[in-house]
């Protein structure tokens, strides 16, 4: 029996979440009494496979093919399908990255399985894994168990395991050349690009006031602008505010925006979906103001006010002005 950890690379560099997933896979494999194999796919992944071979594992698969040079959903699905058919793992773990979200559901479908995505924890119960994942944008957790024979598939949320929890060791590397044909790859990718140079670098800000859906309307943005001014803070926002065009995209904090770690992060009317939390949970002091006492943001906050932001924020501005 084996567990397969599929690590992610781009252009010969590891994705930062790869070794978090490896840590999770080592832990689960040990508890299941299973071997741990590692796979890394691409073109010219030999050096990365050697790098992974310095971790505790039974084997490292270098899944090597010229057609895997640029990521495509069809190419990666076909290559990993071939490897999994060859090695028959009981469990396949992947980092829950944008790339995994693009192909892993299809990979699992090829084996008539549903992917258990975005897992935040796991335990082994009677030899079988049970995963913890969030429901309702982090408001509830749930225990999820794969049913029936493997392979089962799960993807690991950013930060759920620590990358340095991956234990060192030595593992043999084996190259696997999947049978790929250019005709089966239907997506034609172009090189990645960024929209424009970032005019606002939130990562350098010492204090950030960030606003979410609770602000309700573009006309209400001055309420939080006042607070940012009083604090000498940069103004930022959660994704829906930027989507609506109420603040520019370059002020977005979260998985699709900027990652920040200021001394103080004040989240105003932000419920705290994981996509936002990953961008700001490194802040030294987190303050949340929200009318919903059960909002997930309070789980990462150091201080919070439960109340109507339209009453609380002006009161806060007055109190801050008193001391400045």
């Amino acid at each position, binding site marked *: 029996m084996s567990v397969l950890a599929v690590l992610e690379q781009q252009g010969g560099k590891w994705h930062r979440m790869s070794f978090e997933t490896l840590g999770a896979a080592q832990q689960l494999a040990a508890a299941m009494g299973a071997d741990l194999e590692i796979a890394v796919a691409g073109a010219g992944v030999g050096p990365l496979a050697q790098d992974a071979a310095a971790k505790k594992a039974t084997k490292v698969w270098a899944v090597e093919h010229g057609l895997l040079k640029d990521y495509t959903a069809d190419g990666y699905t076909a290559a990993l399908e071939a490897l999994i058919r060859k090695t028959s793992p009981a469990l396949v773990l992947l980092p829950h990255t944008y790339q995994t979200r693009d192909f892993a559901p299809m990979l699992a*479908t090829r084996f008539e399985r549903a992917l258990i995505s975005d897992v935040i924890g796991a335990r082994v119960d009677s030899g079988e894994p049970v995963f913890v994942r969030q429901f309702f944008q982090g408001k509830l957790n749930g225990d999820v168990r794969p*049913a029936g024979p493997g392979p089962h598939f799960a993807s690991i949320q950013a930060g759920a395991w620590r990358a340095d929890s991956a234990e060192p060791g030595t593992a043999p590397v084996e190259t696997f050349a999947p049978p790929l044909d250019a005709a089966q790859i239907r997506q034609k990718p172009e090189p990645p690009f960024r929209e424009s140079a970032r005019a606002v670098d939130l990562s350098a800000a010492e204090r950030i006031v960030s606003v979410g859906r609770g602000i309700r309307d573009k006309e209400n943005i001055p309420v939080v602008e006042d607070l940012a001014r009083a604090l000498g803070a940069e103004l930022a926002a959660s994704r829906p505010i930027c989507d609506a065009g109420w603040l520019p995209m370059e002020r977005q904090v979260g998985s699709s925006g900027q990652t920040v770690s200021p001394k103080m992060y004040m989240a105003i009317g932000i419920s705290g979906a994981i996509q936002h939390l990953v961008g700001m949970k490194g802040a030294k002091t987190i303050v949340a103001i929200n009318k919903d006492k059960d909002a997930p943001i309070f789980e*990462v906050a150091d201080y919070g006010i439960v109340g109507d932001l339209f009453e609380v924020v002006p009161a806060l501005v007055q109190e*801050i002005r008193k*001391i400045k």
Partner: protein
Amino acid sequence: MKILVAIKQVPVRDSQLRPSGQWISEADLTFEINEPDAYALEEALQLKEKHGGEVVALCAGPARAQQTIREALAKGADRAIHIEEENLAALDTLGVARLLAAAAKAEAPDLILTGLQSDDMGYGQTGVVMAGLLRLPHSTIIMQAEIQGSALRVKRELEDGWFQHIEMTLPAALTIQSGINKLRYATLMGIKRARTKEIRRLTAAELGGASPATVVIERVYAPQKAKQAQIFEGDPTQAAAQLVEKLRFEARVL
């Protein structure tokens, strides 16, 4: 061009959720369209306005989902298919996607759109699994879609502010990111018209039946807090004063 949009009905945001066994108690909850699906619907309507054709809304859910389907019709979908099942929670994402794919197959659409994930389950895979079952090329987390003849060019969102263009050939399936477009409101005329539009009802049995779940939710529960936040409630002025005091003398960030 025929565009099929898979939409889901979910509890409204900020609902007070009460865990109940393997899922939640639905008593006292109100429901609405899953937000990313609203953007997928809007994208379908805009593509239809540009290229002509038809927009078909596809929804699997209990009888209450009809409200959300009517709203999609009021916004401009031409007709709808409702896979009416009271107990979809017993299926896994693959099981639900199988029903959706079976209904979609009979329609043979040029393009299938759906939101990138649901606000309730949040598995983020229904669109990709449908593509897999229907053997369609797909792409995910899409921020722009352009069609020229049978060529589809999309802008896919990557991490950390990066994007990528991808080309493929229709028919295809896309999962749509929130914010790709500006949502419209239903007009009075649209609401009136929606009453006469067709909603075809199908059951799981008519679509090949329910397949046994490969993933089972054992229970849901309130998460344990990682940190214990100091919370101030009550009078806003007093709460603000207490917070400022803490920020100055305890956290020392003011």
